[in-house]
């Protein structure tokens, strides 16, 4: 029998597409986009088109497994009862031994962004105060910057961009990472909108834009400030600024005294005349929209960069404009109830919810170092869910040390990931075709449910089901040891996740109505249209007391990014590719054969390397083998590897990554972000014996 079900793509992706699956006798046949969704519009990216392959992939793990020795690959299938018994007994033993539940650590993030996946946090909260990874590896600095400037972190509906006469895509590559935005942009271009793309190299989006502005990595904030200065000099400031902003005189004085356009041109690599042209066009075109991507804030000065761009938007009067604004992301629709056992997530720009007030909070970006440093009590058990830190985190040498020290490691996932190789117990989880869930987007305004279309593959279970079962086992062994429910209905739990505020936003009388179709939240299509801000002053704050309290300058200001050390002179950028999402590859079983290093041909020539040549990039933390490919648009002091998973036997890219953190992030997400664009390497030729080459003079 044919049946159709609705789903939401749960990936950490702008688009959060609405999907419709077709099954025949309980087998998934096809997945299509939902045409009723005004952003997805019935279309899928090739990643989601690989979903059926993913669900039925032969490499998907279908049963709980136990590994005899970590990293040995010596796995044996066990029953759920054995797995749960071992987990529960370990938890209770650690609690007895240490007289505390703090030795238990949870590290979970965005493997699946569904609200019911917060069950893992709720389970840990039900056990007692535990050790938690908090913050976000992704967007923290930018979120804080927007929270400081606007008082709240929100963006206009992505459809609103259609009204812009000028679109600046700044450090964002939607052609690869938010593909459903591209038709909106293209349609605007056909109506006469000018599109300018700012990036470090000619991205797939830059290649489709009218104009490409190449900015030296980490200097975008200075570029924005220099353009702000031009606006001031050429009398292109919004005359209404005194009515809705705070501290603009101070900010203009800062621009006047500290910022020189010619000097900015030298530092940013954008010619002074170009800076002036761009500023004039931005100041004179209304509406004009800036979309600031996550890439430009992954620097040690990332928060200031976003603050400078916000300030530029405000100076020109584009904030609150229909089709204008500075768009970054939002969390307005993530108002889930928190499974009754976690702190509700509203107003927290952080999907890692559910902190118990007496939890031990460790920055997710420095988790290994912080966990190793924990004493009284030490961290003894780690549960990884929706995470693959041994592939995606910094400080992998510390992770390795941590994994060797821990007493017990549980990984719940779909596949045997690089991190799963460290697990004692592996628990197989369901995909979004096998469980109920509730999803919101951090870009568009839609919220929708995910229905199970097929029975769980093998013995896999949803995170919620796993959390119930762990709680049941704990309570069986020691009654009262976990307050998380021991059973329930996924569907009923989902309905309870719609908080009164979310119901109001979705204009629902009862939660059940969400089961019919995805719904668009009733939010104004253009943010800050009334120019009433959520800051302490109610104004857009050029000068922010909140920033000062958090230890930052009151005004958006430029501080340079890190400089490469002499022994590692090349900046390594690792943007997302269209065919991978962090360590998830698409199609699921195709892992590229080694890494490709994209370099400027002149750089390669100075090292005596040809296109296709094997080489190695290295720094004091490690080395990774690469094959060279040429891209004329990459600066000579930058090299690029598009991130994708690596074979377990190969060294993974992140061995090169140190946990430099971003300036901001603590205010809204609890911890600073990861400044992963501040990674430096040297390039070596691979010959018989590895030797370091310096460029020819």
């Amino acid at each position: 029998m044919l049946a159709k079900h609705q789903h939401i793509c749960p990936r950490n992706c702008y688009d959060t597409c609405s999907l419709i699956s077709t099954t025949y006798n309980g087998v998934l046949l096809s997945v299509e986009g939902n045409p009723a969704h005004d952003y997805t519009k019935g279309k899928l990216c090739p990643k989601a088109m690989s979903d059926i392959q993913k669900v039925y992939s032969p490499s998907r793990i279908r049963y709980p497994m136990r590994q005899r020795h970590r990293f040995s690959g010596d796995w044996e299938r066990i029953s759920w009862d054995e797995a749960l018994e071992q987990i529960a007994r370990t938890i209770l033993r650690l609690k007895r031994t240490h007289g505390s539940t703090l030795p238990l650590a949870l590290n979970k993030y965005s493997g699946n962004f569904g609200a019911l996946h917060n069950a893992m946090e709720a389970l840990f909260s039900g056990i007692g105060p535990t050790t938690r990874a908090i913050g976000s590896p992704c967007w923290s600095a930018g979120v804080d910057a927007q929270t400081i400037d606007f008082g709240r972190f929100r963006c206009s509906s992505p459809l609103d961009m259609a009204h812009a006469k000028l679109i600046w895509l700044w450090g964002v590559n939607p052609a690869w990472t938010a593909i459903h935005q591209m038709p909106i942009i293209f349609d605007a271009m056909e109506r006469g909108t000018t599109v300018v793309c700012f990036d470090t190299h000619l991205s797939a989006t830059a290649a489709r834009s009218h104009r490409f502005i190449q900015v030296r990595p980490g200097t975008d904030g200075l570029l924005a400030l220099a353009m702000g200065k031009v606006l001031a000099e050429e009398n292109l400031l919004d005359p209404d600024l005194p009515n809705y902003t705070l501290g603009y005189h101070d900010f203009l004085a800062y621009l006047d005294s500290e910022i020189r356009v010619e000097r900015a041109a030298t530092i940013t690599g954008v010619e002074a005349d170009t800076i002036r042209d761009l500023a004039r066009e931005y100041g004179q075109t209304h509406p004009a929209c800036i979309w600031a991507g996550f890439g430009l804030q992954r620097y040690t000065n990332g928060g200031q960069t976003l603050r400078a761009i916000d300030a530029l938007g405000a100076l020109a009067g584009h904030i609150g404009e229909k089709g204008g604004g500075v768009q970054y992301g939002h969390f307005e629709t993530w108002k889930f109830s928190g499974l009754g056992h976690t702190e509700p997530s509203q107003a927290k720009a952080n999907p890692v919810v559910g902190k118990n007030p007496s939890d031990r909070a460790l920055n997710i970006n420095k988790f290994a170092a912080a966990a190793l440093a924990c004493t009284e009590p030490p961290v003894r058990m780690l549960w990884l869910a929706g995470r693959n830190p041994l592939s995606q985190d910094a400080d992998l040498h510390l992770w390795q040390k941590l994994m060797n020290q821990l007493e017990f490691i549980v990984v719940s996932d779909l596949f045997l990931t690089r991190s799963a190789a460290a697990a004692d117990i592996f628990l197989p989880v369901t995909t979004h075709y096998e469980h109920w869930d509730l999803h919101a987007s951090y870009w568009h305004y839609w919220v929708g449910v995910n229905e199970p279309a097929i029975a769980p593959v093998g013995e896999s279970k949803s995170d919620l089901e796993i959390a119930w079962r762990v709680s049941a086992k704990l309570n069986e062994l020691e009654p009262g040891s976990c307050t998380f429910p021991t059973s329930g209905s996924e569907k009923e739990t989902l309905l309870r996740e719609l908080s009164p505020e979310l119901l109001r936003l979705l204009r629902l009388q009862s939660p059940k109505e969400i089961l019919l179709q995805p719904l668009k939240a009733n939010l104004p299509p253009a943010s800050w249209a009334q120019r009433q801000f959520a800051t302490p002053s109610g104004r857009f704050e050029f000068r922010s007391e909140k920033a000062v309290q958090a230890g930052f300058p009151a005004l958006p200001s430029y501080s340079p990014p890190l400089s490469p050390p002499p022994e590692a002179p090349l900046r390594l950028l690792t943007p997302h590719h269209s065919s991978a999402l962090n360590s998830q590859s698409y199609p699921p079983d195709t892992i590229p054969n080694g890494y490709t290093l994209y370099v400027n041909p002149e750089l390669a020539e100075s090292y005596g390397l040809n296109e296709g040549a094997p080489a190695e990039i290295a720094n004091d933390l490690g080395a990774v083998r690469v094959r060279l490919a040429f891209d004329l648009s990459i600066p000579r002091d930058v090299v690029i590897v598009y991130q994708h998973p690596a074979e377990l036997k190969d060294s993974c890219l992140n061995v090169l990554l140190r946990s430099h953190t971003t300036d901001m992030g603590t205010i809204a997400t609890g911890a600073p972000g990861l400044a992963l664009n501040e990674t430096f390497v040297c390039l070596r030729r691979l010959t018989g014996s590895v030797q370091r080459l310096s460029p020819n003079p």
Partner: protein
Amino acid sequence: MLKQLGFVLDANRCLGCGACAKACELNHHLPPSLVWRTIRKVEDVTPEGIRRFYLSTACNHCANPECLRVCPRGAYSKRRNGIVTHSPEKCTGCKSCVVSCPFGAPKIHPTTGKACKCQLCYDRIEQGSTPYCLTACLTGALQLREIHTLALDNLTRLTAPLPSLRLTRPSVYFLPPRRVKL
């Protein structure tokens, strides 16, 4: 005059994402080693700017199809709407078409040993639907047109300067992309 349906690709809107090729592969149940639609990346740099764009190509459904001319079994036919189809029941897998098509459109199916190629989803078109590749295209870059009625001013044919290109008269056009100002 008979109709001639053909693909038109707006290279300004093509992201090279491969949704078209993936939809073709999935819906026609092609084995992993076989593709009917491919994406080619093209780049040229001049002082006026840079062009980096993608060409999504499949069978060109030529006005004078070479495959049809060389097939000893008459496995190829041209429908009234210009679509060039191949009938596997007549095909012996002799590869004449595979070697003679200037665009490499026909391929040998690894399981059947017979030739196969993009049939422009003629059955879907007859039912008033669109080919899978077009349905999948996120940006509207890939279009299907009656090319005899098409204004050709801004369009170019395939870039390969092959003499046989003129002879077969491929029914595929590209709207060349603008240069990105640097």
